């Protein structure tokens, strides 16, 4: 069982992690500062496996990879949104954080909802109502990167030309 952390549209990288916390590459330190101003309770209350469900344009703003790292290191298993800002989406894939676009409305999903999430099937089920939310599959080459654990482990084992074969 996982908990939903619900966010609205246009969650920007300064809300995910303000610039002054980006002076480290230590993922545990970044995880402690995640959403520190927007949702001060998040970092201490989030449990491994929880998911973020958000509206349009999640992760807009800066190119800072710290934002994706902080979310992953906090234990979040996937970010599911109506849409993503392009650099955040790329960053998440590159560090092996699942980022999935919803195929259907999520207006009935609320903060604190208890759900069962399956990365394999790309869907989650709201326990109270048994409603299922399905996500759109990522392009195959990005799934390869996520399966490898990110762009770094992928390139350790493969040549870049194998990415788009």
């Amino acid at each position: 069982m996982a908990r939903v952390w619900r966010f609205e549209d246009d969650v920007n990288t300064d809300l995910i992690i303000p610039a002054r916390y980006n002076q480290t590459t230590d993922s545990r330190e970044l995880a402690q500062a995640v959403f520190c101003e927007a949702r001060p309770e998040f970092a201490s209350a989030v449990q491994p496996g929880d998911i973020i469900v958000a509206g349009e344009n999640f992760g807009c703003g800066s190119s800072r990879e710290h934002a994706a790292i902080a979310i992953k290191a906090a234990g979040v298993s996937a970010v599911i949104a109506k849409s993503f800002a392009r650099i955040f989406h790329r960053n998440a894939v590159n560090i092996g954080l699942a980022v999935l676009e919803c195929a259907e409305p999520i207006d009935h999903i609320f903060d604190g909802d208890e759900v069962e999430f399956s990365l394999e099937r790309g869907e989650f089920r709201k326990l109270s109502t048994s409603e299922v939310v399905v996500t759109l599959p990522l392009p195959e080459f990005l799934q390869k990167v996520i399966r490898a654990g990110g762009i770094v482990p992928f390139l350790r084992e493969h040549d870049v030309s194998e990415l788009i074969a």
Partner: protein
Amino acid sequence: MGTLVEEIIGRKVGRAVTPGEIHLVDIDYMMTHDNTTPLAIKAWREIGKPIFDKQRIVIHFDHAYPAPNLKAATAQKEILDFIRAEGISNFFTQGICHQVMIEEGFIRPGGVVIGGDSHTNTQGAFACLGLGFGSSEIGASWVTGKTWLRVPETLLVTLNGTLSPGVTAKDVMIAVLGQLSASGARGMSVEFNGSLIRSLPMHERIVFANMSTELGAKCGLIAADETTLSFLEDLVEIPSHLEEIHPENPVYAKTVTLDVSQLAPQVACHPRVDTVRPIGELSEVPIDEVFIGTCTNGRYEDLEQAALLLRGRRVHRFTRTIVTPASNKIYERAMRDGLIQIFLDAGCTIGIPGCGACIGRHGGLLGPGERAFTTMNRNFTGRMGSPEAEIYLGSPLAAAATAINGKITDPRVYLLTEENYGTSMAV
């Protein structure tokens, strides 16, 4: 063939491309700065393979330079160790990365530059495909020299008409943001064209490419014409031959047309870039800090416009006013031409060339409850320090007028009194 982004990617891969296709593309330069280099180094080390071409790596210290605290100092020392050990020659500490990339001749029409900074889009003003990337992928590109790109759809923004006095490229771009919203071009290439764009000098074209990021765009591009080429040729010795690049038989996913002739100065209100109002509607909002600078509006001509209003006047005594030239070259010229003296006489503080107060780590942080009027491109909550502070965005002219009056002020109030307005200064 196609829109500007299709032209540029098509030239790189040697055939016509269409939106939706994924290509592996050769990168001309991979840029990072003090904030994004450490994670790139970490990724490169973990991959454990040699650097493909050291000449293509460009590293800048601009976000917090010289280091304002021990953490930044430690990180910069570690970057320097890497630069020395690997023999990276393209290392710069003379201003904002996007400006220094232009000044040092890394930018040319048809080029592909990826940068560990979301405003790498700036280079689109030269029909150079500038793309913001995260650090790990840049560290990966040090090894591969390539990146995958999805050919984006193109949104054409046609801007026609003539700007009235006191209205600048920044006001037009803020109006475009108000119309299209912060996700209005999400993942797309935005192409700016029209009689206004074609008439503008490079420092004003740059504002559109730079703030295409705020539309959520992948890139913001402007055709490379005579203006582009003569600007680049005057700047530095460009080794290779420069070519004009124009869209050819383009198909646009969406088009927007705006006539700017009646436009008033515009302000993006805290905390969203797309909450836009004409400046006259905000005239009673008191301002604690004015910040003139950044990759959007820290160029010589921007400072010249601010100086036009500040000459012979003083800034409000409770409005600290910081002027931060985008680069040392701009600083030097502003000093030579007397602009710095005008700012000092007016009671301004001159910042160290670089990103300055824009990233909220040094050079003019905001305290709780304070309100800033800046020439930046972003006004997110907490961006400049306290999450309880507010940020308003506008042009250098509006920022100067606001600094004098201590509250948000239409620059035309002061411009009307400038006898030489419109003759000696190109506004």
